């Protein structure tokens, strides 16, 4: 390495003295062939990396064309200086191609890493939800895209009434306890009626019933901002008349907002 340096320095000194001595426009530069060899190997190196051809074909092409220029100049009389110049440009362009390819490879890596990160986070959130649902094991719970859906079987109302009957307390207590343990989560109480009676009346009735359950939850100490109530009337049928008339509580995934109920989106 050191010997090479000395040798190159000597060459430089020779060139310098020759050039200033002659003060001529075109002079031969002895290291043109060295530079040409370096330029060729720079291109070979870039070509050896498949990512260069994939991500920086334009730059690689430019480098190849510059090498052709350099070789053409080298063949011409008095063209050595031009050849050195083009050889240098070739080398740099080959390096540019490699750097651009490296950047693209890194960007791709980051993108797939981001996907991977989302996947891990999602899995973590799901297992968290599973654990949370385990705290509600006495209630009929199922994980859906909207959140955890709890069906309250023991909450019942008299026909056409929105008055909570005694005995509903147990599942409401459980929901309240769950909300106290998971302060970031929210709930939405959703009530449905069967198809008996007028639609307007059913919507109003289901809203009142959802409100009654929501109020019971709020009265037991949960901030009203975390509890919403929606009456869907006889929408979104389940099948049997018994199941059409039902109360569900949707628990949010973490602190995410609870999306609205749409048919078939359970």
């Amino acid at each position, binding site marked *: 390495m050191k010997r090479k340096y000395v040798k*190159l320095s000597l060459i430089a000194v020779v060139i310098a003295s020759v050039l200033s001595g002659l003060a001529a*426009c075109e002079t031969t530069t002895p290291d043109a062939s060295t530079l040409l060899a370096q330029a060729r190997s720079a291109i070979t190196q870039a070509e050896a990396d498949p990512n260069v051809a994939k991500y920086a074909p334009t730059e690689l092409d430019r480098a190849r064309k510059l090498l052709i220029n350099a070789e053409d100049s080298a063949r011409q009389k008095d063209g050595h200086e031009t050849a050195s110049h083009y050889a240098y440009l070739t080398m740099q362009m080959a390096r540019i191609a490699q*750097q*651009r390819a490296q950047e693209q490879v890194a960007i791709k890596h*980051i993108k797939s890493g981001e996907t991977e*990160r989302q996947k891990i986070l999602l899995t*973590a959130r799901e297992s968290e939800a599973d654990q949370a649902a385990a705290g509600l094991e006495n209630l009929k719970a199922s994980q859906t895209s909207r959140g955890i859906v709890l069906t309250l079987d023991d909450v019942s109302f008299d026909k056409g009434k929105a008055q909570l009957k005694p005995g509903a307390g147990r599942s409401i207590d459980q929901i309240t306890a769950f909300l106290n343990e998971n302060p970031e989560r929210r709930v939405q109480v959703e009530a449905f009626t069967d198809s008996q009676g007028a639609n307007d009346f059913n919507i109003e009735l289901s809203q009142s019933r959802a409100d009654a359950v929501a109020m019971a939850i709020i009265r037991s100490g949960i901030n009203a901002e975390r509890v919403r109530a929606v009456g869907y009337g006889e929408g979104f049928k389940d099948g049997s008349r018994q199941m059409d008339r039902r109360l569900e509580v949707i628990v949010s995934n973490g602190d995410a907002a609870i999306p609205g109920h749409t048919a078939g989106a359970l």
Partner: protein
Amino acid sequence: MITVNGIRNAFWCAIAFGIVACASTPVPVEKLAIAKGSIERAEQAQAAQFAQIELNSARNKYAAAQAAADRRDAQVAARLADQADVDAQLAESTSRAKQQEQLVTEMDASLRDLRNDALRRDGTAQPVPQQP
């Protein structure tokens, strides 16, 4: 790298010195402008931090090209401008690549942490309803 650059600089200086007499073609204004634009792009890509050697080489050659242009030495000015341009492009691409690679390292580290967290959670996975 530096030594080769140094020699090259010496080389071009020598040529610049030697060929003062033979300026005949017009000064390459366009090439100078292109080189300047590439240097600015490299600077915007934080090459001063991530590809200092390449950026300095580009700046030095650009200054030399301008000096040659001032002397009406068109050929030397044109070549130096071209070299300043590729040096600046290399500075920019090197800087960008390095920054992306830094992001890759950070991403890999955060993924490792996340996976470890997940493993730890699965290891102690049990319904703990009393946990706050």
